[in-house]
């Protein structure tokens, strides 16, 4: 699939997008506002499409594109003052209460130590499994397991989660 996309096959690249866009979004949303993250997902994939020939190992596509996402998030953060136009999002939603709650939870994750942020976003926001997180972050499975355990324990305390 990666090889076909590298030859310019847009359908193949579309499949890669469907498979990895959540991971890319997770990487971005752990650093930027949700609106900026959604917008930047497109840029990350277009940027990756132009540079696919540079990718030597097709199996590393996930971690490669997430690395691109991290770089672009950093560049974007430097260029733009981070703002959270929450009001617009809330106003556009059918359930503004849920949106507000979601952003509060995301803010709580972002307030955690950096080591836990991306791992928790990928798991709790985007729904990736532990092995999938390890694959796209380049962390070892054990590190992911520890980050999930410790990060979630801290998050639970801060959110005051009740069943």
């Amino acid at each position, binding site marked *: 699939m990666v090889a076909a996309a590298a030859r310019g096959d*847009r359908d193949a*690249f*579309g499949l890669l*997008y*469907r498979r990895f*866009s*959540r991971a890319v*979004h*997770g990487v971005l*949303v752990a650093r930027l506002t*949700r609106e900026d*993250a*959604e917008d930047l*997902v*497109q*840029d990350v*994939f*277009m*940027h990756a*499409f*132009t*540079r696919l*020939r*540079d990718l030597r190992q097709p199996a590393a596509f996930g971690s490669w594109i997430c690395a691109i996402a991290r770089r672009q998030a950093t560049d974007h953060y430097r260029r733009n003052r981070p703002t959270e136009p929450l009001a617009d999002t809330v106003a556009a*939603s059918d*359930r503004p209460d*849920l*949106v507000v*709650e*979601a*952003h*509060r*939870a*995301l803010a709580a994750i972002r307030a955690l130590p950096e080591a836990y942020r991306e791992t928790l976003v990928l*798991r*709790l*926001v*985007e*729904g990736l*499994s*532990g092995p999938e997180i390890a694959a796209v972050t380049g962390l070892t499975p054990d590190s992911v*397991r520890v980050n*999930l*355990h410790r990060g*979630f*324990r801290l*998050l*639970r305390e801060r*959110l005051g*989660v*009740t*069943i």
Partner: protein
Amino acid sequence: MTTAPHDDLDDVYLWDPETPPSAEVRAVERRLAPLRFEPEATPLDWTRAGAFVVRRRRPTWLYALAAAAVLVVAVGSLAAWRWSWPAGRPWPIDAAPAGAARSLAVGAALDLPATDRMHLRVARIGTMQIDGDTRLTLRSTQGTRHRLTLDRGTVHVRVWAPPGSLSFQTPAGEVIDLGCEFDLTADGVRSVVRVRSGWVQLDNSLDESLVPAGAMSEMRADRVPGVAVFEDASPDFMAAVRALEAGAADGDVLRRIIVAARPRDVYTLLMLVERGEFGSDLLARRAADLWPPPAGVTVGAILRGNRDALWQWRDTLPLPPPKSWLRNWRDALPSWFADRR
């Protein structure tokens, strides 16, 4: 109620969302659900592709090919420049005694006193040092054909050019550069050449002789040019070879050659055999002992005058390839630089 069971359940579900859910984790997931990215709802926007220039990396071999082409053109241009020289243009003299001419013109005889020394450029193909008490005349010069006469004295020559570009007429015969560095001394009777790199050809009306790097030879007008003898050969071997060439057909001279010869001297032995010098059969057998001939070549064939067989044998010797001026590219460098390497 302890938290341990919750933690265990949390960990399992956190690791694998396909397992039965943990209530606490599920509660957080539900809170964050509005933020989840849905690729189906946000398909790839190819209209943005125009903003990203497709960068096609040029293959490495293309750069290598371009670099090779540039190198070939550069070397070719340099060679063409070196080998071009207007007919009759005087050679520049780099270092000369006070009051001496600054160039060597065609037809002008240079008579250098014993106390002086001179450096001049051999057109653009090399350099020459002229020792004291030397008489030299530039007969003609053009492109890659430069002819001189050395009546007496010593010159040290370093050239990088196609074989035959430079030659000296001496009283004993002609000395032709085959792309190399050599020293040449001439007097009214004989010419002696010592080759530093490449090959030099000695040629008079009787025969010719090829002298490789590391060897020396001498030529007299009334004899065939001497065979090449490596300068690190024993003095007795050298003296005996010259005596044999001078016509000393006796067993003692032959014995001295055979005893002192080394594998490196097989080239000398084969040249003596080729000339049919006295004792050629013994010299050929000694050569075979020191450096066995290749398959299909026998001493018998050599002695029957099979010159092709002899050259096949000679080609197995560790000698610089004839007319290998391209391989002697270091001769194109200034001597101070090449000598330092």
